Every structure is written in structure tokens, then in C-alpha cells.
């Protein structure tokens, strides 16, 4: 059964001939490198429509950031941009962006098209107050300060910031999310027509990402903006963008209205990508990584650049570059065999969330406990000299009274926003961080007593049993040592009985096992000669060579490309079986945590401001969250299914404030009390303990106790954040 064109051609409304604001014609961006010309944009042809939200999705190295820079003629030297980018202002003559002079560009970049990058942190001058940043920009463009500042005030308010406070702050006084929102407001201050955003939320937390996305939707409507949103995170834009364009190997392979692209992608790459993205709603069996690697910009494959990885590739594909097949005016895919892609690469969106199988993994598992934490506190004193002079003392409670047990062969994921103490807790579990109160024990032996020399276990054994895999594959390998040298270190230390040949054998076989073939070649490489995924595999192998009982995987897949994450997690689970180890997986991303834990019948723990607020079997946490905060996180994790995404977008977040309270000054009572939509008066006084619920999960919220005084207590005034309303009451 093959598809016919009519099936894909969904009748579109009468806006058919779109008003085009940016016309991109045959744009190439090239860099001359030592080993040849690197073509990072390859003959891109594309139209951006007026007043649309366009989502551009691609993996790292696909050329999507170059596209953003090219739109503003901002490709850094020595890059060469050629082709035409024509901007049609609402009134007046079209301009070719690529032929503007430096001074014209300067005006153009703020007044017509403006741009927000990922690193908001470095976009501000740390010695200037936010107000001065705004004023300086306005002055540079010779606009009326008063009028514009008023506009800025309004923008900040629209973005849920307190304009007065923000204006009077220095950049470092704002949190990451606030800074990013401020930057968005700043980029809109001169009322540009187009806003180009390159991964603006990648460094932020889930909830903040989602909130910013929703706010962007509002801004777009309110100020008649055209937004070009560039990201690697397909689910994030899927629900919000009007149109989606997918980039692969330096060109667009498919574009169209986002719902159509998601539901019935025509290009094999898009389909494979949809299959590989970990999401909260797709079924686990359906998730598959994309085989192979992204092409090198210096010598991209001839013909269709996807052919080395494409299951549908034929001889034709290797010879000719496919043109866009246009199903309709607004839908196209660059593939010869688009008719068959639907049958060959199947994917399903979303499973019914009500039908999750009752978790049978009994919570009272038989397995022996490897590490247990009892009432652990980790507090950091942050008293600098200046603070001391002013008698100010600030203690960060990174971990607050947490008890948790990790068993053999178990996968536990800790999920929480950044700064919630999950990494500190993880390091405490593996004995890298000394708790300020409470105890950490390994198989019944207190770790820190053992370290001090008074214990039954040798500390060396404990040290060996608890290992770590870091987040950033770039810095977790010593750049000046080869893979062989890095992998030999643990063996030399712990297996002195192995001779050099045995060591070599073990290393080669393991490298082969994780798919790095030929191992002789990989063993001799330096880290810079490996891709991110390969580095992370080496790091995992290095940890496993210690044959540990527990590995702390600190955001171990977050730095990898979406299409590689599933593969890495599968590898982790696969090796777990072989090496008999447990994982403590730390993540800010619900989808990754869900994939790893649900596949291994593990548990998920939710952390908030240093407290463990809910912990239980993965299925239950994902599909039946109980703690109000878990519900918020769940809300912030966008589903892929367009219907559900729409539904999710229509609901407001179940939360009263977007920003997390200052961790040096946590709220009294329940830590979530300031943002919880269900908070009542008692919550501001008393601290809830983790307690059993009807399910297998344990939750720290009074609402789980039917007889608690909570039910008789007065609700605190409860205005949830509304991201949907057009104008917000100040």
C-alpha cells in the first residue's frame, strides 16, 4: 500500500497564497578549512511567512544555527554567505539582506529582524544594570527613550517579570530563566517584525522552557511578530509552531504545517527522528535510534545526503539530489521515495495514558540494598567576606532530610529543575560529597566512617563500587590521553593481576561491545577525534571497568543529540545486565528519565528545592503523578501527539509562580508552598513528610492524608499563572 498524493494533500484554508516576509533563495554558507571547503548551508531555498511561528528542527551540526545567522547576514568570519535573502517590510521596497552595508545592517538587525541566542548569560554586560542595557540600545538607534522604555516595561510584564525589579538589577542578580526572558524583551524593544531565536531555551529548565514557549505565543499575537524558532527539541515546538521545517545535512528536507508533519511525516529522516525522540507519551517499543552519523560538512554524501542512513535508499538516491516534492503549496519533502516512507518507517504517536499497566514491580523488592541514605542533609555555607562584614549569612540547603535506598540492579532516576539539589544528592550517594547530617551507607557500612578508617569495609572497596558518568562528554575525558590510556587506568589500579595483553583484550572487546569498531583504531584516538556519543560511550565503559555496584549517571545523555539518546540509554541498560550494576540517573528531562526507568522497571524520584517530594515506580509517576509539583513537571513535558499537545497548550500550568524561590531563603513549611496551586494555610507552617499512598509511590504532601488538618485549613489566595490570557492584570 503506497500513499497517494491526495491523501497528503489536506485542503488548506483560503490563506493559501501566503504573505511572505523573508525569501531565502539558494543560500550557501561555506568555510574554508585546512582539509577542504566546509559547506554548512547548502543551497537553501525557503520562505518565511508573515506572522507565523516557524519551528526549525535539526540535530546539532545540521546547519540550523547557520541558517539563523544567515537570515541576519551575521555569519561569522571567515564564513562566506552567497545567494539571496529578501526581506519584505510591511510597507516599502523589499531589501536583500545579504547586500546591506554594515551600518544598514546594524539598524536592520534591531528594527526589522532581531535575534535571541542560547547564551543569555553572556549577552549582558555584567557591570551594567538591565535598565542601562535597554537605554543604550534605544539610544543607539536614536529612538525616543521614554516611549520605548514604556514599551519595555510592558514587554517585561508580559513575560511575567516585575519590570521595576528587573530594570534595577544587575544581570547576575537574575536567574537564568529571568535573564532569558529579559533578553527576549530587550530584543523586542524596537518592535522588530521578525524574531529569530536559536535554541533560546536549551539551557533552561523544562518548566521555564514551556512557560517561555507559551509566552512567545502570546507575544506573537499581541505584537504581530513573525517568530523563527530553532531547536533540536522536536516536542518542544511541535505543539506551538504553525509550521515546522526539518533540517538535515545543511538543507531543509521537509516542511509543512506542524500537525501534518508530525502526524504523517513524508521524509524518511523526519520519520526516523520522530521515532528516536524520547517523549513521555510514545510507547517504548517504538523508540529507535537512527543508525549512523550525521554527515561531515566537508564532504557530504553525493546525491541525497541522507542516503547512507536511509532504509529506503536506492541507486537513484546516491546519484541525484532529490528536489522538493510539493504535496501542496505549503508542504514539501525532498525525497524520491516519499510514497513508501509511510510503510517502511512506522511510528506511533502517543499511547493512551489511561491504560498503563498496573506496576507489578513490587516495591518491596527482594534485591539487596546497595546504598542507603538516612535523613541526609547537605548544606553549603556561602559566606563570603563581604557578607560576613554585613552579618549576612546564607546557607544553601542543597539537600534537605532525604532518605532513599538503592538496590542491586535497579535504575532510579532523579528528576528536578536545576538547582534542586539532585546532583548534590547524587554525589552524596556515591560518597563524593560528605553530608552535613545523616548517614550514607554502603551495604550497611557507613561510608564516611569507612573513609575515616573505622569500618568493616575497606574504603577502597566502597570507592570502587560507586562510580560516576558525567554530563559533558567533552570534559569527562582527559584531552591529552588516548582512549586506551584512559581505559587502562582503572584496570591498572584495580586489576593488577591482568597483564598488558589481557588489559588490551578486555578493552578491545568492550569497545567492540559498545559499537566502536575497529577497536584498535578507536583505542589509539584522542578524545577530540571522537564524536560526543562515542566519548560518552568511552566514559561509560571506563566506569564499568571498575565493575561497580552503582553508577551515578549525571545527566548522562542530556548533552547528546536527540537521535542518539535512546541508543545511549539502551546501551546503558544492556551493559547493566552484563555488569550487574545499578544506575542512579539524574535528569532534568522527564522523557529521558521515563525511557530509562520504564524500560527497566525502575523508580523515579522528584526533587524540589533539596527535598525529595515524590518517589515511586516509573509508570505511576509518569501516568498518575500525585504531588502537585510532579504534576507541574508533567505539564511541562510536551507530548508529541498533536491533539494532546493542543490540549496541553490550552491548559494553564498548575502553578502560581513561574520562578523558583531563592534557595538561600527557602519558604517555611512545605517547600512548594509558594507555587503550589493547592496550598492551604497549614502548608505554610508545617513540613510534609514522605508518606505512603494508595499506589506504590510515596509522596510528601498533606493531600495524601485524608485525615490531615490540611482539609480543614484555609486555602491561600490562589491565582494560577495564566499563560493564555491576552493581557495580564498587573
Amino acid at each position, binding site marked *: 500500500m503506497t500513499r497517494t498524493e491526495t491523501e497528503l494533500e489536506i485542503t488548506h484554508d483560503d490563506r493559501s497564497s501566503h504573505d511572505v516576509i523573508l525569501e531565502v533563495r539558494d543560500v550557501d554558507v561555506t568555510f574554508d578549512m585546512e582539509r577542504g571547503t566546509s559547506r554548512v548551508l547548502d543551497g537553501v531555498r525557503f520562505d518565511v511567512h508573515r506572522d507565523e511561528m516557524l519551528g526549525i528542527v535539526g540535530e546539532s551540526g545540521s546547519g540550523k544555527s547557520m541558517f539563523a545567522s544567515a537570515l541576519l547576514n551575521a555569519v561569522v568570519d571567515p564564513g562566506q554567505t552567497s545567494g539571496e535573502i529578501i526581506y519584505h517590510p510591511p510597507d516599502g521596497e523589499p531589501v536583500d539582506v545579504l547586500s546591506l552595508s554594515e551600518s544598514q545592517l546594524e539598524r536592520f538587525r534591531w528594527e526589522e529582524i532581531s535575534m535571541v541566542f542560547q547564551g543569555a548569560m553572556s549577552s549582558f554586560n555584567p557591570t551594567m544594570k538591565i535598565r542601562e542595557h535597554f537605554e543604550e540600545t534605544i539610544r543607539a538607534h536614536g529612538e525616543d527613550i521614554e516611549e520605548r522604555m514604556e514599551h519595555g516595561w510592558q514587554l517585561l510584564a508580559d513575560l511575567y517579570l516585575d519590570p521595576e525589579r528587573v530594570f534595577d538589577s544587575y544581570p547576575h542578580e537574575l536567574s537564568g530563566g529571568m535573564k532569558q526572558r529579559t533578553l527576549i524583551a530587550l530584543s523586542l524593544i524596537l518592535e522588530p517584525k521578525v524574531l529569530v531565536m536559536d535554541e533560546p531555551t536549551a539551557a533552561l529548565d523544562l518548566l521555564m522552557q514551556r512557560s517561555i514557549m507559551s509566552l512567545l505565543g502570546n507575544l506573537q499575537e499581541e505584537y504581530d511578530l513573525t517568530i523563527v524558532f530553532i531547536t533540536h527539541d522536536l516536542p518542544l515546538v511541535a505543539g506551538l509552531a504553525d509550521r515546522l521545517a526539518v533540517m538535515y545535512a545543511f538543507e531543509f528536507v521537509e516542511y509543512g504545517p506542524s500537525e501534518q508533519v508530525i502526524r504523517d511525516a513524508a521524509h524518511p529522516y523526519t520519520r526516523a527522528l520522530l521515532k528516536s525522540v524520547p517523549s513521555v507519551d510514545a510507547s517504548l517499543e517504538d523508540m529507535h535510534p537512527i543508525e549512523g552519523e550525521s554527515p561531515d560538512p566537508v564532504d557530504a554524501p553525493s546525491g541525497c545526503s541522507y542516503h547512507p542512513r536511509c532504509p529506503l535508499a536506492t541507486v537513484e538516491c546516491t546519484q541525484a539530489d532529490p528536489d522538493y516534492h510539493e504535496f501542496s503549496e505549503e508542504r514539501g519533502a525532498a525525497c524520491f521515495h516519499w510514497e513508501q516512507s509511510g510503510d517502511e518507517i512506522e511510528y506511533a504517536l502517543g499511547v493512551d495514558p489511561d491504560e498503563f499497566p498496573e506496576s507489578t514491580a513490587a516495591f518491596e523488592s527482594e534485591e539487596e540494598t546497595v546504598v542507603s541514605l538516612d535523613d541526609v542533609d547537605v548544606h553549603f555555607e556561602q559566606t563570603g567576606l563581604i557578607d560576613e562584614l554585613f552579618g549576612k549569612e546564607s546557607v544553601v540547603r542543597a539537600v534537605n532530610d532525604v532518605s532513599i535506598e538503592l538496590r542491586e540492579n535497579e535504575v532510579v532516576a532523579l528528576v528536578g529543575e536545576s538547582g534542586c539539589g539532585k546532583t548534590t544528592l547524587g554525589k552524596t550517594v556515591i560518597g563524593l560529597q560528605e553530608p552535613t547530617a545523616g548517614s550514607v551507607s554502603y551495604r550497611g557500612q557507613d561510608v564516611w566512617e569507612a573513609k575515616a578508617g573505622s569500618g568493616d569495609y575497606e574504603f577502597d572497596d566502597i570507592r570502587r563500587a560507586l562510580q560516576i558518568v558525567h554530563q559533558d562528554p567533552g570534559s569527562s575525558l582527559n584531552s591529552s590521553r588516548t582512549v586506551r590510556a584512559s581505559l587502562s587506568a582503572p584496570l591498572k589500579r584495580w586489576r593488577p593481576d591482568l597483564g598488558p595483553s589481557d588489559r588490551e583484550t578486555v578493552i578491545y572487546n568492550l569497545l567492540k561491545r559498545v559499537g566502536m569498531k575497529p577497536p584498535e583504531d578507536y583505542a589509539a584516538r584522542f578524545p577530540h577525534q571522537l564524536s560526543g556519543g562515542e566519548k560518552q560511550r568511552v566514559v561509560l565503559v*571506563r566506569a564499568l571497568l571498575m565493575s561497580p555496584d552503582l553508577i551515578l549517571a549525571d545527566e548522562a545523555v542530556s548533552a547528546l543529540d536527540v537521535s542518539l539518546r535512546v541508543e545511549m540509554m539502551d546501551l546503558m541498560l544492556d551493559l547493566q545486565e552484563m555488569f550487574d550494576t545499578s544506575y542512579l540517573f539524574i535528569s532534568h528531562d522527564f522523557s529521558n528519565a521515563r525511557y530509562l526507568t520504564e524500560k527497566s522497571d525502575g523508580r523515579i524520584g522528584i526533587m524540589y528545592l533539596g527535598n525529595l517530594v515524590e518517589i515511586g515506580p516509573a509508570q505511576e509517576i509518569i501516568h498518575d503523578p500525585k504531588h502537585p509539583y510532579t504534576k507541574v513537571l508533567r505539564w511541562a513535558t510536551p507530548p508529541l501527539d498533536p491533539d494532546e499537545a493542543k490540549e496541553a497548550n490550552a491548559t494553564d500550568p498548575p502553578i502560581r509562580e513561574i520562578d523558583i524561590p531563592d534557595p538561600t531563603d527557602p519558604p517555611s513549611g512545605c517547600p512548594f508552598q509558594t507555587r503550589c496551586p493547592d496550598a492551604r494555610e497549614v502548608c505554610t507552617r508545617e513540613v510534609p513528610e514522605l508518606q505512603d499512598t494508595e499506589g506504590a509511590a510515596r509522596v510528601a504532601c498533606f493531600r495524601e492524608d485524608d485525615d490531615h488538618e490540611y482539609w480543614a485549613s484555609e486555602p491561600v489566595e490562589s491565582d494560577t499563572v495564566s499563560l493564555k490570557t491576552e493581557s495580564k492584570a498587573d
Partner: protein
Amino acid sequence: MSHTNESGFETDEQLTDEQLFGHLAEDDIVSLSRRERFERILDAYFLAPGRVAWDDWRTRIGILVVTLFVFFGTIGPRLVTPPATNQAPNNLQPFDGGVAALWEEGGWIDIGVDHQLSMGPISVPGIDIRYPLGADNYGTPIGRNLIHATPDMLEMVVAGAIVSVGLAAIFGITAGYKGGKTDEFLMYITDIVMTMPGLPLLIVIVAIWSPRQAWLIGVVLAIDAWPGLARALRSQVLTLREESYVEASRTMGLPSRTILARDISPQLMPYILINFANAGRQVVFGSVALYFLGVLPLTTANWGIMMDTAYSEAHALVNLSNFYQIFWPMAAVVVLSFGLILFAQGMDRVFNPRIRARHAKKVGSDEEQIN
């Protein structure tokens, strides 16, 4: 799909390991002969760095200059007759006789069967060279003088550089890696030393307690260079120790000395070497300057003394026909300091894994990943 203990391994930890490694070691046993290992080590530690260094002309010059300096500082004096006054005519011009000396008898060079050049135990027939660089006011040949001053200079430079960089490395790296009280104490000392004024103090020390051995002079001259470097190294170590791979090594239970040697020092090496070269230059400049000024006791041979003699006895700066007497030692100082800088810069490349990988024999594929 459950990943609980289905693998059939027994729960006894040690046995599992044995099984596991046994299993891993079974298929495709790699046997590594002693020779192969030796070759690998040779390639990684000597040949590849050597190739990297030789690949760059600046490094080549640097190596050449440093090698020459070491050569003249060790073997040179044995080949060249010690200088003495009145060995040559007073104020003999360099290259006496000019180009014509090549074919005429006499002058600075003679070629012919009945001539022979004897350099210590070696004698080269057919050629003879006589005072090519000229002689000073007292008829001391300048070339011989230069060469015979080199051993003391070498001793001075090496001792000064080793002591100052060594102190800095010990203080900086220990303070940075250990942290806490150790850090505080070591930095306290460093700061005290740092606040002492370098040159004036030096002059005072030398005046009170005039050091006679060359190495001691070198140490005294370089002593004020270390606190700054120690501070810089400490701050670098502070960042490095937080790197994920260092934490991973700690988690693997590797001893501190291994971590310092393998993970931290290589990253500091380029920096240390640059400072080594700088300390060397500082000693050269310092000694020359102080001898020239006559602050240091005239107990060792030094290019500075030659310059002083040229200046005060032959009035080399006024009487331009004697300028060559001050020119040669000055040229030696400049060439040496230039060579040291080039050498240090070249070493920077040697420690860069990206460049090293390109030159290592064993690395199969050479593509850099674009992420």
C-alpha cells in the same frame, strides 16, 4: 523487559568479575609482544612529540639554539683553548683580513694542506681558523671567551629556572589541589615573597653575601620569579580539579599523585615550559646586567663581564671601531633568549593533543569531529 538479575551471573561479586573478565578476555585474544608495547611507548612519548616539534620552523630554530647553548656549555670548552690575555693582538678586528683571508695566507682563516685546526682532542686538517671574532683590549680572543663563559651561564640558567619553576610548581599545584589550610598557608608565604621588591633586594643580598658559585647566582637571580607563577598555577589547578575527568579519576580511587601526574600536569605543561624559558631569560638578562654594572663579584666567566670590559676598557660605545667587542656578547644574549622563547612556544604545540594526534603513527583515522 526486565533488567533485573537475569544474566545468570552469580551474586558473589568476585566470581562475577572473574566470569565477566574471563568472558571478555576469551574472544579475540589480543596478544601484545614486548616489542609492540615498546614501540607504542616510543611512538607516544618520543617520536610523535619529536615529529611535532620538528614540523615547525620556529621550534626547529629554538631547538637548534638551545642545543648549541648546551653543547657549548658542556663540550665546547674542551674543544677550544682557554682564553688568556695577549693570545691575540690587542683590539684585533673580527674576520681580520676580510674575504681575502680565504685564499691569502694569514688573516682569520687559512686553507691549505699544511694547516690544521686542533680542537682539543680532535684535529681537522686543511683548515685553520684564528680568532674569527677578534680580540679585546688585552688581546683576549672574544670567541674563546664567549665559549668559556657558557658553562657558567648554562649552570646559572638551568639552576635558576629549575629552582624558580620548581618552587612555583610545588607551591602552586599543592595549594590548588589540596586546598583548605594547606592552600592558605602556602599562599600566605607566596604573598609575602611576592611583596618583596625583586631587584633592589637582590642587589642587597649580593652585596652582603656575594655568591661565588654560578648556580647560586642563578638561583638568587630567579628567586623572585616564582611567587607570581605559583599563584597562576594554583588558580589553573583550582579550575582543573573541578573538571569532570579529574573527578572521575578521584571516583575511581586513583591516588593523588597519579591524578596530578596524569590529569593535571599535562595541562599545565605548556604554561610551565613558557615560564621555564622566561626564568632562563631572566637569569641571562639579570646576570649580564649585574655583571655589567659590577654588582656581582667577578668570580665566574660571564658575557656581562665581557660587555663591561668592552664598555669601560675599550670604550666600545664611543670608539665605534671597537663596537664589535660589545656586539658579540650582546648577540649571544639576544640569540639565546630568542631561542628559548621559540623553544617554549614549540613545546606548547607538543603538548597539544590535536597536533600530536596528527603526528602519531598509531592513530588510524585523522578526521576531526565537527559537533
